[in-house]
């Protein structure tokens, strides 16, 4: 178990360094790659906390799907770096203001013991003891599908609405686009696919123009 602190410092250091590089990197693609590194190390920290289920879900959802789409979009963008940096000084005060609010909130979160002592003392559901043989996938399932089932369903509904919204915004029926109809292709038989003609010797038959496909 004494290996755990060494790995904690490794993951924590790389997470912070990668997080810094996300905003410091000049090339947006590099920034996204550093973001992925940060996600990955955060997953490592979850494993050290004993929350291996959350760690794997973090990797599957954020690294495996969300960041791929980020990378996809960023790679397709034609970014003009000079133009990107032009507005830096103009927007700096606003950025600093938002940063300050975030900093204050983070300080409050970290120092919550002073604001409300004993907030962690009573968890809303009993946490299974480490040796009880209950894996944390099971432990999460027990509270997620019983106590928090409505929140869970609500979150699912919001995602569904967002998904339908995205489809509605991008779905356009273009006129004049030829589409493949696999059913029609498979259903083609002898009658519809070939014409058998008897050609008399020395004669020629010009087939009638076929109705369009």
């Amino acid at each position, binding site marked *: 178990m004494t*290996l755990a602190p060494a790995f904690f410092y490794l993951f924590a250091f790389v997470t912070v360094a990668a997080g810094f590089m996300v905003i410091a990197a000049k090339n947006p693609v590099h920034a996204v790659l550093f973001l992925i590194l940060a996600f990955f190390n955060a997953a490592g920290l979850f494993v050290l906390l004993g929350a291996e289920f959350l760690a794997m879900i973090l990797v599957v959802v954020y690294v495996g799907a969300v960041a791929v789409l980020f990378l996809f979009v960023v790679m397709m963008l034609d970014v003009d770096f000079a133009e990107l940096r032009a507005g830096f000084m103009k927007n700096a005060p606003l950025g600093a203001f938002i940063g300050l609010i975030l900093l204050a909130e983070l300080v409050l979160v970290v120092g919550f013991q002073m604001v409300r002592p004993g907030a962690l003392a009573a968890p809303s559901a009993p946490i299974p003891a480490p040796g009880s043989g209950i894996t944390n996938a099971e432990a999460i399932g027990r509270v997620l599908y019983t106590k928090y089932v409505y929140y869970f369903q609500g979150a699912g509904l919001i995602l569904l609405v967002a998904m339908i919204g995205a489809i509605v915004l991008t779905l356009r029926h273009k006129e004049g686009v030829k589409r493949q109809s696999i059913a029609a292709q498979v259903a083609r038989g002898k009658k519809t696919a070939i014409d058998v003609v008897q050609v008399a010797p020395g004669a020629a038959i010009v087939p009638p123009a076929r109705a369009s496909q």
Partner: protein
Amino acid sequence: MVEVWSWSEIWQGFLWPLLVMAFWSVLLLVVLLVVIAFLLLMDRKVWAAVQMRRGPNVVGPFGLLQSFADLLKFVLKEPLIPAGSDKGVFLLAPVVASVLALAAWAVIPVNEDGWGRWVISNLNVGILYLFAISSLGVYGVIMGGWASNSKYAFLGSLRSAAQMVSYEVSIGFVIITVLLCVGSLNMTDIVNAQKTGIGTRYGLPASALDWYWLALLPMFIVFFISALAETNRPPFDLPEAESELVAGFMVEYSSTPYLLFMLGEYVAITTMCALTTIMFLGGWLPPLSVAPLTWVPGIFWFVGKVVLVFFMFAMVKAFVPRYRYDQLMRLGWKVFLPLSLIMVVAVAGVLHVFDLAP
């Protein structure tokens, strides 16, 4: 407060566990890579046999050493780095591809018995780890395609990104169906759950009928085809379709970086074969639990089943023509996604109604 650690504590706490971990990992990698060298040869031999050719037959007896000759050839050639490329990412991409593919093998159990250690890490969330790692395989491809600064490579990597993200969805649902039947995310538990099943329910001895390939037959087929697409194998090898994109995302690669990409690809294929074996073909369980078959150590059954699945991969490569891109997307989103979603609901319903859920 400063703790002072003595050397023996540091040795026992840090160095010894690290050494043990390193030893097992290196042992696994060496065995795995040698096996893959021969699987690669088998792939080419099967392909050749279908086309009535001899295949590689010059290096060593029956061409057995061909893969090692190829390794030497790749390593000894000069790596070319295009002038317009992003050099760091260009060289990082093949390393990412091969390391991620190899990392998946940390949780794959190849046997279970009283003596010996048959898995590097017996994770409780083993199959989720495998799913996570295999979904990261796309990064090697995207990074390689983008960093090459070439249109063919970029097109190949865009195709690959869309393809792998699409087929991951149905692979995820297939894994969920298997997990519903097992009740655990642990890989060893998944195999052990297949000791009883359809066959034993009717009083037969434990046999191949108990494995999930029969109980979840549609899912087995969906998983096999999705595994082909996820690993960019023919007929779904559109990211590197040589007749359209030269060699897709690998077009600018040469020498050792190219070797690493190919290695990553074949390791990923072997991982998918092992995953198929564990989830649907009963892992290291013998096909029939009677005397002479149960004496055979489980590892032989496991390797035999992996080779069988790999043989199917090789045969598909040999006689199925390449898909068109829109057909590939149609198959993934309009056929496999609804089918696997319905199966998740159906399997959950059957398990609940007949009270079979673990």
